């Protein structure tokens, strides 16, 4: 039995002791900037002079005057809607393929991870432009294969966003890494027991691997959802929103307003509106999780 005398071991005390680092960090580094940015959302703030309170003006302008706001909003939704599932599927499949034992495995894993290490660098931006240029490698390969090779990937309003999504998907590394460690974390005894029971690989995947992975799938889903809505790099570095604003991410529009035109008040308003949208979506995902996420610790 637990020693009743030790107050530090009471659930309500121990809980706070464990999360204390988070709470300290929260109050020391996050709370003030967080609420400052909320305040700034209701001001006109050009960074160089003090902020001026203007009430709901930023939001009025956002919803009713700024045409690019809604364009960027739609682009980002489309981007997230396609990129999140495709990237998740990719990172899961590759992680599964990389989870077995083989001498060559460390090399394969490194190879599949490297694109995400190269992240938002200038080099990748240039490379992507080169690959998908009118006369670039991709079109040449298509030509060799006898396929139509005159697509203007990054300049055609119909294909530009897709080309950037491809870049995002290609950098599935960190999601894969997380899946990989989760797969490795499944005790091998589970699989061994199932083999003894005569379960085939498909059945074992559906009955053991997949349920055991749902907490991490959930994490990756939430994380990539947030990441996609805050996407910035690929558009900023490669297309700057072109052509015809079809790749103007919300994050890029926000950055342009806040830092190119020094409208930090408006930028903050945009950020807070996006916070509400992502919060609603994330809440939905969390709500749904009780239906499909399996926690071993809950002993369901």
């Amino acid at each position, binding site marked *: 039995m637990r020693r009743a005398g030790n107050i530090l071991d009471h659930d309500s005390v121990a809980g706070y002791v464990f999360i204390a680092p988070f709470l300290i960090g929260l109050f020391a580094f996050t709370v003030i900037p967080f609420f400052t940015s909320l305040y700034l959302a209701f001001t*006109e703030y*050009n*960074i*160089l*002079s003090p902020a001026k309170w203007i009430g709901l003006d930023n939001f009025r302008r956002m919803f009713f005057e700024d045409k690019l706001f809604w364009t960027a909003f739609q682009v980002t939704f489309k981007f997230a809607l396609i990129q999140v599932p495709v990237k998740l599927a990719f990172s899961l499949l590759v992680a599964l393929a990389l989870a077995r034992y083989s001498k060559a495995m460390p090399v394969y894993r490194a190879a599949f991870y490297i694109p995400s290490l190269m992240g938002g660098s200038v080099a990748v931006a*240039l490379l992507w*432009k*080169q690959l998908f*240029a*009118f*006369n*670039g490698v991709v079109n040449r390969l298509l030509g060799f294969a006898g396929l139509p090779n005159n697509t*203007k990937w*990054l*300049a*055609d*309003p119909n294909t530009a966003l897709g080309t950037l999504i491809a870049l995002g998907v290609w950098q599935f590394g960190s999601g894969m890494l997380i899946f990989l460690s989760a797969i490795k974390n499944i005790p091998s005894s589970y699989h061994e027991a199932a083999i003894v029971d005569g379960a085939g690989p498909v059945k074992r995947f559906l009955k053991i691997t997949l349920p055991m992975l749902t907490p991490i799938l959930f994490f990756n889903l939430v994380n990539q959802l947030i990441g996609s809505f805050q996407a910035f790099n690929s558009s900023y570095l490669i297309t700057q929103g*072109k*052509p*015809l*604003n079809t790749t103007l991410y919300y994050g890029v529009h926000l950055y*342009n307003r806040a*830092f*190119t*035109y*020094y409208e930090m008040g408006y930028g903050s308003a945009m950020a807070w509106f996006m916070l509400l949208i992502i919060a609603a979506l994330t809440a939905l995902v969390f709500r749904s999780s009780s239906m499909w996420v399996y926690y071993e610790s809950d002993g369901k």
Partner: protein
Amino acid sequence: MTKRLLAIALIAAMAVCAAGTAAMAEGGQTPLRILWWGSQTRHDLTMAMLDKFMEKYPDIKVEPEFTDWGGYWSKLATQVAGGLTPDVIQMDHAYLVQYAGNGVLASLNGYIESGAIGVSDVDPSILASGNVGDDLYAVPTGMNALVLMYRQDILDEAGLTLPFAPTWGEYVEISKQVFEKTGRTDTYVVGAGMDQLRFSLRNMGLNMYNEEGTALGWDDPQFLVTNWERVLKAQEEGYGLGVGETTAATAFDDLVADSWVGCHWTNELEAYQNGSGVELEMSEVPWRDDAVQPATFFKPSMFWSIADTSAVKDEAATFINFFVNDTDCYDIVGTDRAMPISAKIREYITPNLNPAAKKGADALDRLSSEGHITPVMKPDVAAHSEIDALLTQYNEQVRYGLVDDLTEYARQFIEESNALIAKSLAAK
């Protein structure tokens, strides 16, 4: 294991703290913070120049900070917001009105009057490019002009020559012939951006913005329509690179992959020659066929400004004076921040220029000696960068063939630009 990790973490953390407190300036010297942007060459040259400066002014201890171009404006704005504005700030034409207008920069009139910043060898119209209203807020570091840079080897191949001051009619004819004879397309002719608009306005004696900076300085939609029609014709006939048919990833390889000509600042010649690996020649930007005056102007490449909050403004002025007038400075930096504004210094450095810088200097000389330079443009209105972005959007629509009535569309641009200017003025 955990304990050892913790111990390492503690020691490292203490090292970090110790590094933090060792930032005090040594005995009796006045610290002077200077912030600039640039590339490796500029960082190297500037550091060497600052060493020389400190050698000559041993009471001043320069604390240099430098960034890339992209991060500069975020860093500077953040420092201003945090009350940590550097004493000496490298400034750009596009941001000058904004920074001066918000009281970030100190007026330099007093230092000019007292001679602390000596400008007796500087053309007053050049110096005036740092004016906002009646006050001087920024001293140009050097002068530039926007010119065409083109590949003579391609023209030779086609047996053509481009005059030094072509008209649009002449230019388009050459562009067509280059395409017919070599198959090479032109990316300049389909540009139609802010620079082309500005040059065509200046050819007619107009300015982008009016004197007071309260609206555009023109209202005839024909200026835009002419440019757009030229673009559409070039695209259609094939000598202008079709929209989206770009192969180049940067402006450098554009000169190799897609085009034979581009529009750049004179002091960028070396960068373009190195980046593209080809020899380039320079000519003026094409004149309107009905031009009433030349359009080319000397533009300050960048400026030095002093922070209004600086406690060491005199030392900052000493530095700017050193940069404007001291030959010791130019023994080191050369034309890295473009052609020096002091006539004496220009004379001093000309014999020692490298071939690319020499070519740039020659082009500037030729522009002046032929009388093809019109006065320096005034700083653009604060809304300029937004209007520039707006024009890019309009051009895109036109190039993608989405606009039926160009005149109406041009009117719409004028209206929208004026509204942006009005809005930015109302914000103050």
